[in-house]
């Protein structure tokens, strides 16, 4: 469902972010992108959600050719995916409930559907009583759970998580990873970018390892191994 075909991302001659990257992700998979900071994990994700265009090569998502999408076509495409970021990216002027509801509002779902679904998802991520809190009133782990709730509420085919645990302590980290595993068990494809060795080793799923913009390893049930 996700295909990277000989993708290059070159900012300038001194800064090559991705070099000839090719891989494929099938529906229902849980794939981790491993590698140290600057290896190219985030670049893979920005290309995947169409925030940037590859210098060379093609990126496919289902029937979409992502590198060919125009600014106008991007919103409709992005409704097929849910994205979770290291810095949460919640709307600060909206409370937790509204942040999650927003993902349904943009696709034009009815008010009754929204008032039914949002509390369910809030309960699922364990924030049933925090719907009226604004992001600045929530802890890091809570914010990330709101972000995950927002990413999954419209039942996307894929959840993409870019260092979702980067700002969290080990306790909250395992909480978030368990949540992602739960979502994956429900049938959603998950792409997780992380430099956290513990997280990857505990997952025991497919791992694509990047180093200096190249894929150096792609293993089923992989471990976090550099060099």
């Amino acid at each position, binding site marked *: 469902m996700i295909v990277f075909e000989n993708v290059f991302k070159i900012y300038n001659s001194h800064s090559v972010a991705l070099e000839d990257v090719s891989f494929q992700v099938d529906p229902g998979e849980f794939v981790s992108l491993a590698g140290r900071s600057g290896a190219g994990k985030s670049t893979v994700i920005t290309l995947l959600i169409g925030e940037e265009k590859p210098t060379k090569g093609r990126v496919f998502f289902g029937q979409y050719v992502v590198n060919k999408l125009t600014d106008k076509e*991007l*919103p409709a495409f*992005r409704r097929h995916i849910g*994205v979770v970021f290291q810095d949460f990216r919640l*709307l600060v*002027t909206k409370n937790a409930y509204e942040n999650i509801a927003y993902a349904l*509002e*943009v696709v034009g779902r009815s008010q009754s559907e929204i008032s039914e679904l949002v509390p369910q998802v809030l309960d699922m991520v364990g924030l049933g009583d925090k719907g009226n809190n604004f992001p600045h009133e929530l802890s890091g782990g809570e914010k990330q759970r709101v972000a995950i709730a927002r990413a999954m509420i419209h039942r996307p085919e894929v959840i993409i998580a870019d260092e979702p645990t980067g700002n969290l302590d080990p306790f909250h980290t395992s909480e978030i990873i368990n949540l992602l595993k739960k979502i994956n068990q429900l049938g959603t494809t998950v792409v997780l970018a992380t430099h956290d060795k513990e997280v990857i080793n505990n997952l025991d799923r497919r791992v694509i390892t990047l180093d200096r913009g190249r894929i150096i390893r792609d293993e089923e049930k992989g471990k976090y191994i550099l060099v």
Partner: protein
Amino acid sequence: MATIISRIFHYGFKNFWRNGLLSTATVAIMVLALLVSIGLILFRVATDRASASIQEKIDISVYFKTNVSEDQILNIKQSLESLSEVKQVDYISSDRALEIFREKHKDDQVISQAINELNTNPLQPSINIKARTPDKYAVIADYLQAPRLATYIDSVSYAKNQVVINRLATIVNNVNRGGLTLIIVLALVAGLVVFNTVRLAIYSNRDEIGIMRVVGASNAFVRGPYVVEGIISGGLAALLSLIIAAPVVYFISPYLNAFIPGLNVFKYFYTNLFSLLGYQLLFGIVVGGLSSFIAVRRYLKN
């Protein structure tokens, strides 16, 4: 579609309320800009009145020889009235001229007595001509120099007042033209100040806009609430500016009246309140909404 539109308005109002401080600052700047525009409208009224009062003071008087009959004078008057440059012609017979003269000098014993001693009326019949615009007096004066009329006319006041009339005409023209330029420039400045304020407010929201895009909001859904916010700010600022202007205009109106006779800005303000409100709303809403529309655009990329 209806749900999307109602959500856009809902968020527009909600954001305006929640971004209280930012909204207040934007509205405050808009109020200042709109006060400038009220000031400009009233300035225009004042200059119009001033130039009109100058124009009222300018005229040409034509004095006829005493042997010319009233019919002949009325004929000439009629021919003058048919000219497109002429606004008004008043005939003053020698009897009427004498009356005016007596009235004017009734406190002066010597002159009153001197007139009473005369058997005949020494004053000439005359006509007063007002042109539509001050620069037309030259044309009218030319017309009066025609040889056909020369036999009746004794003198024309234009010749001796020519310099003064021309100077006044220039002043009237310059006041009108200068006033218009000033209005255009200041209105442009006011518009730009508002645009920049809105742009800054939206700049501080650029991350939010990026997030909305990532979540899959269409451009219209991202932009709509900001445009609604801009429109609310503009509408509110229009109302506030009039509320602030009313007492100020009431207070300064008598002072302006002292400068320019016949000018009553408060009366103008009061009688034209609704059209003023209309202009202000139009300016506020168009500038506010358009500024938001343009300012959001650059953050709708990728």
